[in-house]
């Protein structure tokens, strides 16, 4: 089923660069291959091929992507953060993605399998992917879409105090949704004859999403996992509520890690209802501890779960529709 994403196979071997030294012929071929890219892209590629230094890689990859993006969209790429989406923001379709891949393979002298590309949705995904490829690191886990059953199974918080209906977790952050049903017990008293979602509960919901990120998405030390029962709230700053949220509203939550150093992890968080800003939290800090991986709750493989219907991210860029 093409809608399913494949968990990555762990064994990603470090690339051994061609033992042949970088010859003038190679430089001419490289110049020809990159003739429509910026001079700095070519320079970075030459440096990479001469030294094998992976620090030159992002400049090459971004330079190649830029070459395939329509001129009027290139400005977006100039000051892009890693969240810039290939399909939605840059208009790159699956065929263009293949063109990018072939040129990157050609220039960096590596081979990329179709399976490995399915999960690349953002510029950051691409950079991380190529970096892992070159350094021989395991590929990052793809974005996981977690339905309520999975969330309930791994979270230390449980109903009626769990404020996530669904969530997706990647290596760079997490998104979630919660629908205010009106049946929440605290709405009976908050307020009298006027149910309004307490701001403190909304902050709690963001905290829960951060907990889910620590369990499902955060990088760990080898053989270790973050223990679900070791995570607690320590503090928050810069919290502002912008909009009253009432039964029927669907809260769209997002968190991103800002700093992570055992035993503290700090996140920024935001809640929206549709396009309207509801809550902003500049800093939410949690404490956590590592446990042996075997002791950690066995995670159901979120990657095997189908993505929610209607979610754009369910269409990774590398699905070439063949209508032959």
């Amino acid at each position, binding site marked *: 089923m093409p809608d399913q994403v494949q968990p990555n196979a762990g064994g990603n071997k470090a690339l051994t660069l061609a033992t042949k030294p970088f010859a003038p012929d190679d430089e001419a071929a490289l110049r020809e291959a990159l003739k429509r890219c910026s001079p700095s892209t070519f320079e970075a590629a030459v440096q990479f091929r001469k030294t094998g230094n992976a620090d030159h890689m992002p400049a090459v990859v971004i330079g190649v992507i830029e070459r*395939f993006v*329509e001129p009027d969209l290139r400005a977006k790429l100039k000051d892009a953060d890693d969240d810039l989406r290939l399909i939605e923001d840059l208009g790159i379709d699956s*065929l*263009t993605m*293949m063109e990018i891949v*072939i040129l990157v*393979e*050609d220039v960096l002298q590596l081979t990329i399998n179709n399976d490995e590309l399915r999960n690349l949705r953002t510029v950051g995904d691409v950079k991380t992917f190529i970096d892992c490829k070159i350094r021989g690191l395991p590929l990052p886990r793809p974005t996981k879409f977690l339905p309520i059953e999975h969330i309930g199974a791994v979270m230390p918080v449980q109903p009626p105090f769990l404020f996530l209906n669904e969530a997706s977790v990647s290596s760079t952050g997490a998104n979630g949704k919660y629908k205010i049903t009106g049946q929440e017990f605290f709405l009976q008293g908050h307020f009298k004859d006027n149910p309004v979602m307490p701001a403190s509960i909304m902050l709690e919901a963001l905290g829960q999403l951060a907990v889910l990120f620590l369990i499902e998405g955060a990088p760990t030390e080898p053989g270790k996992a973050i223990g679900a029962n070791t995570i607690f709230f320590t503090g928050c700053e810069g919290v502002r509520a912008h909009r009253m949220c009432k039964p029927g509203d669907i809260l769209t939550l997002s968190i991103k890690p800002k700093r992570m150093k055992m035993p503290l992890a700090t996140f920024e968080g935001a809640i929206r209802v549709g396009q309207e800003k509801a809550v902003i939290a500049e800093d939410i800090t949690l404490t956590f501890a590592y446990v042996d991986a075997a002791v950690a709750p066995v995670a159901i493989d979120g990657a095997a779960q189908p993505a929610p219907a209607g979610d754009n991210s369910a269409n990774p860029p590398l699905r070439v529709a063949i209508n032959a």
Partner: protein
Amino acid sequence: MPRVFITGLGFVTSIGNDAASVASSLREMRHGFETYPPFQKPDVACKVIGTVKGFSTDSVDPEDWTFPAAYTIKRETIRSMAPHGLYAHCAMIQALADARLGEADISNRDTGLFAASGGSPMLTHYHHKRMLDLGPARCSPLGIVASIVGTLNFNLVASFKIQGASCGFSSACASSAHALAYGFEEISRGRQKRMFIAAGEDGNRDAILPFAGMRTLSLQTDPALASRPFDVARDGFVGTGGGGVVVLESEKEVERRGVKPYCELVGWGQASDGYNVAISHPDGTGLRTAMENALSATGISAAEVDYVNAHATSTLIGDISEARALRAVFGEMGIRPAISSTKALTGHALSLAGAMETGFCALLMREGFTPGSAHITQLDPACEGLNVIRETVKVAPRVILKNSSGFGGANVALLLRRP
């Protein structure tokens, strides 16, 4: 049965890249031939082709191509094109403007597109060689849609967001006449209101030189003598490429939009020789039947035909076959319509020929002239009794018969009538 009209034309040809310059070349009998640099080698006997001017498509990378500044084409559109895709795309833009069609008229379920091209031998070779040399993983994902027969319909349907009928036609040099004929059927049967008939040929070394294997190319080195259909000294055809688009619309659409059509496409006929894979029947039996079928299908009598735009490509056998077929249909009854082959000026555009020359016919009806058959010094005696005109006359034909023949002995005859 809905009547079908031609309401728009677009041209990228060896004799002009817009209707005005094409019309003046036809009227003044100016050819589009040049000595072709890739053929200036000792082992290439053929030296001349009909060149497309103002475009450069020699590279296998479409992003290297240059074309007139009037056209802007995005990378994502041009990347999957063959050279003739670019020519036809530009012709399409002309035809849409000429027919005064807006976006809503183009992209809807009642508007379709039929196309004809021989594919792109240059790109087929390039991509195939790359696959064999570097392996399939290094093949361009767009190599197939840029090169196989059908590339023209794939690209145009996607670029112009066509939602109605779409199909490609492949009967060699009768291909785009077939596309016009079946486009006519779509409208006259009420299945579509409007059809774009697009055709193209790369017209470069890889598209033309393989015909040298058949010894059908003219070996003349003088561009002014190379293509001379019906002349006794003709020695083969001169290859050419380009793009052409003809817009067909139902009578109702013509009325609704208040546009002035060039002419009516009244009907058509076809028949096959059943004779040889590449050589036309010496008596032109298939072509004769095709013409007779066209006349009987439309109720137009042979005597009403004022002008025949011949298929005649300047080959030894083909021109005689057509002359005999014409004599059987017209000469034996003492009817003498004007006959000429505009391939004397353009060269033979293969799959593109039928649509391009039908476009010429529509144009000259409006412009009010009948083009002469150029470069005839001595008429082949086989044409005796036929009115092959050697100079342009200032008479707008009322009814035109347009012939096309292709490999396998496929023959198509189209009938056009001035409104």
